[in-house]
C-alpha cells in the first residue's frame, strides 16, 4: 500500500511516523491541554475570567501597543528594505546582518538593555527627561520594546517583494513623463501594499505575545502597563491554571483571527491589483 504518490524513494512511512509522533508529543498534546483546560470553569466561568477589568485592560494594552508598534514599523521597515534592495553602499553587508539583531538577541537581553537605555539616567532617557517624556516603566516603554523586536519582520517581508518589482513599469511611467515622486506614489507603493500589510501582520503577531523584551521596561502596573502574557504568569503563580489557560486561549484565537482577516484583505488586494 502506498499513501504517498510519486517517486520511487523509500522511507516515507518511517519519516512520516517520526514526524507525527514528535509533533504530537511536543506540540499537539500540549496545545490540546490549552484548548481543553479553560472549560473546567464552565462557559460562564471562562467568560467571567477573560472579561475581568484587569484582563480586558491587559488585552487592550497588548493588542493596541502591538498594532501601534507594527504601524510605526511599516514606514521605517519600508525605508530600510528599499535602501537595502535598491542601493549599494559601504557597510551594506554589515547593515544586512544588523537587521536580524532583534531576532538573534535573546529577549531578556533586549529587555534590560532597552531599560538601561531609556531609564531616566540612561543614554536616551536622560535626553528625554528635559522634554518631560518618560519612556521606561510606562506604556511608552512597551511601545519602544515592540518596535525593536518587530522591525525585522517588516523588513524581511518587504525585501523579496521589492526585489521582484518589475523595473519596466517604473521606466514606462518615466518615459511617459511621470516624476519620481509620482512613480513612487502611483506605481511602487500600490504594488507593495499587500507586502506592507503582511509585514504589519507579522510584526503585530510577534508583538502581541512578546514577553521578555517588554516586562523589564514596562513597569508592570495593573490596569496601566501590565501586558496579557504577564497576567498569564501571575495566574499560574496563583495556581489558577484554568484562568491562565483561558487567557492564553483568548490571546491565541484573537491573534489567529486578526492574521486571518489581514490575509483575506491581502488576497483581495492582489486580486484587484
Amino acid at each position: 500500500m502506498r499513501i504517498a504518490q510519486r517517486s520511487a524513494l523509500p522511507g516515507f512511512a518511517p519519516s512520516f511516523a517520526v514526524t507525527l509522533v514528535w509533533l504530537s508529543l511536543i506540540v499537539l498534546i500540549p496545545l490540546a491541554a490549552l484548548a481543553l483546560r479553560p472549560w473546567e470553569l464552565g462557559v460562564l466561568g471562562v467568560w467571567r475570567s477573560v472579561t475581568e477589568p484587569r484582563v480586558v485592560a491587559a488585552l487592550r494594552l497588548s493588542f493596541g501597543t502591538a498594532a501601534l508598534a507594527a504601524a510605526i514599523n511599516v514606514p521605517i521597515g519600508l525605508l530600510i528594505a528599499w535602501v537595502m534592495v535598491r542601493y549599494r553602499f559601504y557597510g551594506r553587508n554589515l547593515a544586512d546582518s544588523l537587521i536580524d539583531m532583534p531576532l538573534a538577541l535573546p529577549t531578556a537581553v533586549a529587555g534590560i538593555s532597552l531599560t538601561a537605555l531609556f531609564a531616566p539616567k540612561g543614554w536616551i532617557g536622560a535626553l528625554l527627561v528635559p522634554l518631560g517624556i518618560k519612556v521606561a516603566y510606562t506604556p511608552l516603554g512597551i511601545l519602544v520594546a515592540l518596535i525593536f523586536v518587530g522591525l525585522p519582520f517588516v523588513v524581511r517581508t518587504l525585501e523579496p517583494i521589492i526585489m521582484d518589482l518589475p523595473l519596466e513599469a517604473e521606466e514606462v511611467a518615466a518615459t511617459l513623463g511621470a516624476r519620481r515622486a509620482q512613480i513612487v506614489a502611483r506605481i511602487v507603493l500600490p504594488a507593495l501594499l499587500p507586502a506592507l500589510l503582511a509585514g504589519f501582520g507579522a510584526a503585530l503577531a510577534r508583538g502581541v505575545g512578546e514577553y521578555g523584551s517588554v516586562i523589564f521596561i514596562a513597569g508592570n502596573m495593573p490596569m496601566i502597563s501590565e501586558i496579557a502574557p504577564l497576567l498569564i504568569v501571575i495566574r499560574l503563580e496563583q495556581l489558577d491554571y484554568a484562568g491562565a489557560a483561558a487567557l492564553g486561549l483568548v490571546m491565541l484565537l484573537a491573534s489567529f483571527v486578526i492574521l486571518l482577516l489581514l490575509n483575506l484583505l491581502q488576497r483581495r488586494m492582489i486580486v484587484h491589483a
Partner: protein
Amino acid sequence: MNRRATQESPAARVALVTLTILLLLILLLLPLVVVFSEALMRGFGAMVDSLAETDSIAAIRLTMIVAAVTVPLNAVCGVAAAWCIGRFRFPGRGLLVTLIELPFSVSPVISGLVWVLLFGANGWLGPILNRAGMHIIFAVPGLILATTFVTFPFVARTLIPLMEHQGAAEEEAALTLGASGWQTFWRVTLPNIRWGLLYGVLLCNARAMGEFGAVAVVSGHIRGQTMTMPLQVEALFNDYDWVGAFTIAGLLSLLALATLAVKASLEWRIGQRSEALL
C-alpha cells in the same frame, strides 16, 4: 534624461541611505553597545568576578545542557519531517507544514504554560508523576520540554524549501544504480543539505540558549538549579546587580553576534536566505 528612471535623485539617495544607517545604528546597534558598556561599568575585573559566581556558572552549564538535549532531538526530527514533506506528495501535507510551523505563532509564555497545564501541581499528569517522585515543572525536564516546543520548527522549516528546490533526481539516480535507501540518504541527501541543516541547527541553538518567556514559566526560579542564562539575567537585574546581569547578557550577546556572522556566511553558501526567522 540623464539618470535612470528607476532611481531617486542623487540628493534623495544620499538622504535615504544616511537615514537608514542612522535608524539601524540607533534602533538596533545602540542596545547592543549598552550591554557591553554596562557590563564594563565597574571595570573588567568586576565583570570577571561576577562570572565566577557559582550561580552564574550553574546557569551557563544548565543552558548548555538544555541546548545539548533540545537541538539534536529537533534536528533529527526536522530532517525526518523534511524528508517526508520535501520528497513525497500525500493528503494533509499542507496541514502538516502548518502544524510544524505552529510554535512560531505561539507566545513564549503560552509555550511554557502548556507544559504547566500538563505537568504542573494542578496539571493533568503532574500529581501522578509527583507521587512517583518525578518532577517536570520547576525542574530541568520542564526547561527542556518548553525549549523543544519553542525551537521545534527551525530545522524542518529551513530544510523543506531547500529539498523541494533541489528535487529528487540525484536520489533517484542513486537508487537506480543500486544504492539502498540509507546509502542514498547518507551519501546523496545529507551532503546536499548539509549547509541548510547547519543553518537550521544554528538558528535552533541560538533560540534554545536565548529563550526566556517559555522557560520563565516552567523554571520556578530555583537559583543554581533551574536558572538558565536568560533567567539568571532577570534575577540579577531584579537584585540591582547590573554588572552581573549585563555580564551574562554580554555573553548572550556574543552568542547572538556569532550566530549572525555564521548565518551570513551560510546564506552566502546556500545562496538564499531561509524563510525561518528566529
